[in-house]
């Protein structure tokens, strides 16, 4: 039961996009279509899961005072390795997700979860947290992407194709989610 709670935490209660408001750069940048949002989300989920596990394994070795630089080095190295491996050996995946991977290096969700969760919990729980947060991020980005695609490319309202449209959609969705979550 507790494990499930960790997994589902990221989807609504602590949704990284709408509630924690982390990782705004890719959220606003790549959500021009549902597929792009989905691709960015899946790539982030994969990295989040593994970086959480890695940080959780290293948490006793990393001294508290230098944990932030240590996390950044570990995560950035890990993402770069994944990027190189994909480019070299899975060209098809690199074609569709390659553009998003360098964006993950600087994604604050990854660092945020390392700091808030993985540095205090076990490997398995951290993995679940990574998957949950990744799913929440994927769902949010796909939703924003779908709305922008529908209004922008579908109905030809140009502003939704451009960056301001991303702010509008994000703002309205955030308000909606706050409204739903607020105790009546």
């Amino acid at each position, binding site marked *: 039961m507790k494990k499930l709670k960790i997994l589902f935490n990221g989807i609504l209660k602590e949704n990284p996009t709408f509630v924690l408001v982390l990782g705004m750069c890719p959220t606003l940048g790549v959500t021009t279509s549902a597929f792009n949002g989905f691709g960015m989300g899946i790539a982030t989920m994969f990295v989040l899961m593994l970086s959480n596990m890695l940080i959780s394994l290293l948490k006793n070795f990393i*001294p508290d005072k*230098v944990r932030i630089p240590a996390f950044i080095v*570990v995560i950035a190295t890990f993402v770069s390795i994944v990027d190189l491996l994909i480019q*070299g050996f899975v060209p098809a995946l690199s074609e569709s997700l390659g553009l*998003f991977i360098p964006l993950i290096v600087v994604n604050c969700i990854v660092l945020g979860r390392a700091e808030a969760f993985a540095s205090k919990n076990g490997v398995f729980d951290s993995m679940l947290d990574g998957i949950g947060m990744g799913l929440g991020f994927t769902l949010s980005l796909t939703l924003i992407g779908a709305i922008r695609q529908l209004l922008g490319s579908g109905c030809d309202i140009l502003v939704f194709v451009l960056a301001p449209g991303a702010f509008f959609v994000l703002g309205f969705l955030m308000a909606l989610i706050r409204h739903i979550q607020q105790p009546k």
Partner: protein
Amino acid sequence: MLLALTVIAVVAAAALAAVYVVTKPAIEQQQQDKIQKAMMDVLPNFKGTTEAVKVFANKDDKSEVTVNLAKNADGSIFGAAVETYTDQAFSGSFNIMVGFDADGTVIGTSVISAAETPGLGDNIKSPEFSGQFAKKQMNPKNSNFELKVTKDGGEVDAITAATISSRAFCDAVNRAAKAYDTVLKQKGAAK
């Protein structure tokens, strides 16, 4: 504390270096395959051999353009697949392949590598945009072959909200045409 951070940095650097060395040949191979595939895309009916010639298309260009002259079995020129670039892209630069026939008419274009904004500038890969360039002819007597987007008085329809990427694409095609023209003139002089 200092030790832990040093150890992490050293291990990270070593791991990155190792992975870089291991993946480098594979990544270069992928790049080579991409260029091969782009050449087939832009010269679909060509079966002969190609000869790569590197030239500077414009006097103040920073890098060379590779003109892959396509020759028929009897040595006559079928056309060329020109590996060209632009440095006016939204994300700095991108590389495309442009195929020409012997008279300098564009056969087709193919994007080799570009990192334009997904959903906007990235649409340079879409056939609706890049297909516009097929059958555009460069005039061999007049080297002022220049394609422009409609906004600048040309005949290329720019991608909505991605005028910079569209202009950059025109720039790359123009560079290819100039390079092909230069190579043809060199070859003509040699004969």
